[in-house]
């Protein structure tokens, strides 16, 4: 900061103070109402603390499978509907084997991938890995998800280019990191520790309606976003 900058800063702060002189400070109104209310919220809330109870996670941990039932189903239903409204696709994998089978079929359409170091071995597509600018598929692990908005929260700790440059983006999301509201997902991201340099919220494929109001996908970022919600642990750092 140059001397000019420091003086300018003080002048701006002084002008703010002068402007607010005599104006009553407005108190903060507390938390806002959420989006999801009623039965869906009650059902989905039941799944919030979902501990994975049986089966094995990708890291070999035991007892990680959620209880399932209405609560979890309601949460995933809301997430799926929201993400589809945003143009994304959703799949659910109950265990590692099911996920691996799904991935083999999915990966057949591609000839290369850029894969986040966070993606556990069984969930990495059997494709040649290329730099993100040349890869056909990017694969990430989300730190959290939000059902009300169909959002995936991605961290720059796993790298950013593979989240953005390939034309298709596949994101693994651990079911127990899926929350009802976006603010719960953001709180989840903060509780992990220091926030990453860039926390990104992806809620659909890249799109624009700037040409004649006709929606075009894949303008700059990925033109396809596929989320897979897992019932097992992904060992997210």
């Amino acid at each position: 900061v140059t001397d000019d900058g420091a003086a300018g800063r003080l002048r701006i702060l002084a002008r703010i103070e002068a402007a607010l002189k005599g104006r009553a400070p407005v108190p903060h109104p507390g938390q806002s109402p959420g989006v999801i209310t009623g039965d869906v919220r009650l059902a989905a809330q039941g799944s919030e603390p979902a501990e994975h109870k049986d089966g094995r996670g990708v890291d070999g941990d035991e007892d990680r499978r959620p209880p399932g039932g209405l609560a979890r189903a309601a949460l995933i239903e809301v997430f799926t509907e929201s993400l589809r409204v945003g143009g994304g696709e959703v799949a659910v994998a109950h265990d590692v084997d099911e996920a691996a089978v799904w991935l083999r079929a999915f990966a057949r359409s591609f000839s290369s991938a850029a894969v986040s170091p966070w993606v556990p071995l069984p969930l990495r597509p059997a494709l040649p890995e290329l730099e993100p600018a040349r890869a056909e598929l990017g694969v990430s692990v989300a730190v959290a998800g939000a059902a009300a908005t169909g959002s995936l929260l991605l961290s720059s700790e796993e790298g950013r280019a593979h989240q953005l440059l390939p034309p298709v983006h596949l994101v693994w999301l651990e079911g127990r990191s899926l929350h009802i509201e976006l603010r719960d997902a953001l709180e989840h991201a903060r509780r992990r520790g220091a926030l990453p340099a860039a926390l990104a919220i992806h809620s659909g494929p890249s799109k624009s309606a700037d040409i004649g109001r006709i929606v075009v996908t894949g303008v700059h970022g990925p033109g396809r976003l596929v989320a897979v919600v897992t019932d097992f642990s992904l060992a997210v750092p």
Partner: protein
Amino acid sequence: METHSREYRRRARETLAETPGVRDAVTAATLAFDHHRVRALSEVDAAAWRSWAERVKDHALTHLGELLEQAEARLQARGVHVHWAESGEDVARLLTELVHRHGARRAVKGKSMLSEELGVNALLESAGVEVFETDLGEYIIQLLGEPPSHIVGPAIHRSLEEIRALFSERFGTSPDAAPETLAAAARRVLREAFLTADIGFTGCNFLVAETGSVAVMENEGNIRLSSSLPRVHVALVGIEKVIPLWSDLATFLQLTARVATGQRVATFVSVLQGPRRGEADGPEELHVVLVDNGRTRVLADPEAWKTLRCVRCGACLNTCPVYRQTGGHAYGWVYSGPIGAVLAPAMLGMEAAHPLPYASSLCGACADACPVRIPIPELLLEWRRRSVEQGLTPPLERVALTAYTAAALRPALFGAAERLLRALPVVPSSWSDVRGAPRPAARTFRERWEKGDV
């Protein structure tokens, strides 16, 4: 940026006469935006959200100094360079120094109304930097050499046919190319720019004081790329963008998306805390420029300070029957429509912005649409009152209203004027061309009253 708000009447007339397609394109686009807003708000407790957002913004504005200092401290703790700019000149000096220090030759930019307000493109170009607007709409108007005509959809005044013709000339696409083909042509040029740019510029939707976070909303992914690929990222932040808490962010993101485009949330939100730290990619330097440029003057105004709640969603433009006729260019300033008409006098001064508060029928639709409940119609009236006080109204209007006041205060004179007006012929005008004048009654109300007829 040069402003032409004083010429609103002439520019509006010219737009209507010379480019009638603008009215059709803008009307279609804004009615669609508005329809999406209404549908999206019907899914949530909109009244509660709007009151909440209004309160949080007023809280932030009445604690502005401490919240900015808190944000600054958090950002600096993460290695962010925080700059304070009092004016456009400060920003120009700062950015020129920055691009020279980094030897930057190429810049990619995400859409930022603040950067339009400050004329950043022109100043970067004069510093020898090649600038790419990367939002598709902004890129189109950059190719055309035009300012944006809408806060959210900068190119809504241009039809598909016009964009086809532009791209055919610039990129050799077929004259009847599909929008996908046109977007792909722009993507090719801009992808190359992203991969080779030395510096990225973005604006900011919300600056979270508690965590020192710059949150930026978009749908294309160009802001994520502009803030991730170049080795230097500069975020231009108006000082009014601050919100206090991390837990406030989610609702602001959702409310803004729902009222701006009818989405539940923007397709991409970048929430930036600092430059890369031991990560595989991301910028090595992050600069946050806190810009005043007239905002503290607005804050000091006992009425107009409420305009600083604005989240730049464009909802008041979309619902405005006056904006719809011309689009934004007639307003002669970066912020157009109802919000532009109340912001311009506060930021540019009444003299420079004078006719804009009159570019309204005072129908009140903007106040109903505003997600942070800015009392736009009341402010329009307030600015009109002040423009009368400052003698800025047209001479004929002043004479007419002075005469009316004089007559209205003197019953005898009023009665005489009533009888006189009955004898005058209707002067033909654009108003009477298309409207029949009602025939006056034989006797005035006052005459009948005196006779006991009523």
